[in-house]
């Protein structure tokens, strides 16, 4: 039971911006509480004092107090203007990126966050950053509106298709902080979150040097679609310059010389490193030789990605969801 009642009501604040925003929030909360209780007590007391007493026939007498009215016109105006100024100053702080901020690019799509660090290091949904250094995220969306929100840092910013937006904050505490998509973006909106890992600078540098912490499939997909641009020929549509690689792995492939071969790891590796050796039927040997460009890990990643194309297809057929 005590465990049940032990729920948070005060969020963790882990950025310099949190330190600036929190006082305003608690001050406003205090002010709101005092005013609400005050007004409510006022109503109750007045209702009690001026209640209609049975048997007593007291004529009502309206209050006429222009000074009072003026007072409670002017004071809220001043308070409102004060809040405006405070809020605007905070916002100014929120948008002005300090010198030397760590530059990180973020791409949002339904329903994932792709993050790339300055040295090309990539991650998905998560974000690793060092403590005590401003971080600037430059963001764009590939489809609908999203919003990068980190409650512990008290920051959020809409991510818009066709426009760059940015967001900066300076973490002050190490730890793992949840991050959410805060602009409704479709079916899996509520799953489009991740974790912001704030690390000691030393640990961050080690992490940064540690190579992509992404799955082999994801790394392969990056090579395939972006770094190497395989996708420009292997588009998957008929008439493309390269064969469709969906449902290739593990299937028999007809070669130009009339024979046929099963597309296993061995054949795929060969096709990448020495493509002209065994050309698939109806295709011309256009593909460049990648033997000098790729290391073994890259090839393994590419093959993992090509494998995943097949597996995905199978999974989708099983669940009965038609491919779009």
């Amino acid at each position, binding site marked *: 039971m005590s465990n049940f009642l032990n729920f948070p*009501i005060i*969020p963790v604040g882990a950025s310099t911006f949190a330190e600036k*925003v929190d006082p305003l929030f608690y001050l*406003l909360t205090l002010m*709101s509480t005092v*005013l*609400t209780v005050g*007004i*409510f007590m006022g*109503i109750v007391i*007045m*209702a009690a004092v*001026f*209640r*209609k007493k049975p048997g007593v*026939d007291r*004529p*009502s*007498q*309206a*209050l006429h107090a222009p000074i*009072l*009215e003026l007072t409670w*016109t002017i004071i*809220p*105006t001043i308070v*409102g*203007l004060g*809040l405006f100024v*405070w*809020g*605007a100053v*905070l*916002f100014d702080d*929120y*948008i002005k990126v300090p010198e030397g901020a760590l530059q990180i690019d973020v791409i949002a799509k339904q329903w994932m966050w792709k993050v790339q660090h300055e040295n090309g290091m990539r991650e998905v949904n998560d974000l690793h950053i060092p403590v005590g250094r401003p971080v600037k995220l430059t963001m764009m969306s590939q*489809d*609908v*509106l999203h*919003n990068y929100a980190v*409650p*512990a840092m*008290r920051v*959020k910013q*809409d991510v*818009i*298709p*066709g*426009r760059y937006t940015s967001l900066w904050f300076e973490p002050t505490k190490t730890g793992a902080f*949840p991050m*959410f998509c*805060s*602009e*409704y*973006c*479709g*079916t*899996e*909106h509520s*799953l489009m979150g991740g974790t912001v890992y704030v690390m000691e600078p030393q640990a961050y540098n080690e992490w940064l040097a540690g190579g992509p912490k992404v799955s082999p499939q994801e790394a392969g997909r990056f090579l395939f679609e972006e770094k190497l641009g395989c996708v420009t020929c292997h588009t998957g549509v008929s008439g493309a310059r390269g064969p469709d690689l969906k449902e290739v792995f593990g299937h028999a492939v007809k070669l130009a010389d009339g024979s046929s071969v099963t597309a296993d790891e061995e054949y795929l590796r060969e096709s990448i490193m020495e493509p002209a050796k065994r050309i698939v039927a109806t295709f011309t040997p256009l593909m460049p030789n990648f033997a000098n460009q790729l290391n073994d890990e890259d090839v393994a990643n590419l093959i993992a990605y090509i494998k995943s194309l097949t597996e995905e297809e199978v999974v989708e057929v099983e669940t009965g969801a038609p491919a779009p």
Partner: protein
Amino acid sequence: MAVVADRQIIHETEIRPRHYLNVNHSFWSWFFTTDHKRIAMLYLGTITVFFLMGGVFALLFRLELMTPEGDLFQADTYNRFFTLHGVLMIFFFLVPSIPATLGNFLLPIMVGCRDLAFPKVNLASYWIFVFAGMFGVGMLASGGVDTGWTFYAPLSTHYSNTSVFMAAMAAFFAGFASILTGVNFIVTVHKMRAPGLTWFRLPLFVWAQYATGIIMMLGTPVIAITLFLVALERVWGVGIFDPAHGGDPVLFQHMFWFYSHPAVYIMILPGFGVISEVIACFSRNKIFGYHFIAFSSLAIAVLGFFVWGHHMFIAGQSVYTGVVFSLITMLVAVPSAIKVFNWTATFYGGNVTLESPMLYAIGFMGLFTVGGLTGLFLAAMGMDVPLHDTYFVVAHFHYVMVGGMVMAFMAGLHFWWPKMTGRMYPEFIAKFNAVIVFLGFNATFFPQFILGWLGMPRRYHAYPEEWQVLNVMSTAGATILGFGFTLAIAYFIWSLFYGERAGNNPWGAKGLEWTIESPPTTHNFHHIPTVTEDPYNYTGREEVNVQQ
């Protein structure tokens, strides 16, 4: 309605014993009625249906939010539920609630005329609303819609697979119903006032409806064209919000909020009007600062158009524009604050009784104060950043919309129910219910403030575990709230058949509507009255006319 027997009513001064409800019982006499009171009753029935539908969706997704995993419904289903809740409640309940029912019924009576300026337009407004409702039902039948009630492009225009077209058209036509009501109100207030009824003798309810009419007339067409463009984009396949050929999704938000922020005032201003009437009546006192309350309604209506950008501080809007919007937002909050102070001051020196309308009105003042004050959090630009699109916003606007508008609507409905139907509802149950609704409401939405500050984003189907307790509280509150509204509907319907007969003026209230029969005759007045006194002339020796 038609069951109300009229044989027992014998008014000595009455020439025609018939009133607007029993003047003709045929179907067509309702279908083609141009009587503003009948149209108001038709509207009341229709929006109640939509309110129940919207409420059921709310309960369903609150049930889903009991557990953090999101295991009761699929994400898709959940998304549809909250969207349908929003669309139905906003376009089909909140916007028409007070103007189209209480306003329609009372405005012509309060300005002392026989009907609204354009009775046929009023009827057209109702049938357009029903037509829109058919699109709404079509939207439900074709699987609902999952874009959120805000229809943000490009999710709504290209990425959603649900019936966005139907939803957009539903809101489009509901908008025209609202425009026609607004135009009718403005013309009626300008041109149809009874002799002697100067602007400053108008009840504050009329001022509020007039201000609402202005927003309806000038704001609604913009949402109509915006949603029309969304619907067109769905059908046509290309559109002006599509980033693929240079369109800007932020433009959609500008056009959307140009209406949808003033729409908030469409929803709350009529509530202010109701509260002014109720507070004055049950304090038996002149309203404090009449002129201020009257002008502040207009000021809110006008300034309300200059603040829409506060929905977009972090949506990619220019910072300088944001600063202007933030400043004006702070200023528009001031008239609302003063209204609350003025209502409180109205109690002073009065003879306060706590009948059910008054309890709802007091509930309104408390909840609206919270709603208004939390609005300040969101209007301060820097403070908005952590709170934007969290449950804090959800709680804030529910405190204004439900704690404000719905409480005011309940207050008004209880206040004028005897006038509208000639029957009293069970007063004790109504008082009890006012307390239930108040408590249920706070239990539902107060935890959401904390959730929002903790960072829980809106429209989340699954959420981290540590937020479960607060969500469970909220769901429990929603159940109580649901019970409260169901009970109210039940005793209102009961009272139609078995309620005690109300006299012409059961509350001892001032105002033209209380000088005529309950229920009124078809053309309200036998002779157009000449008004010689100020409104809320409660001071001085009171003439109680309670018939119990």
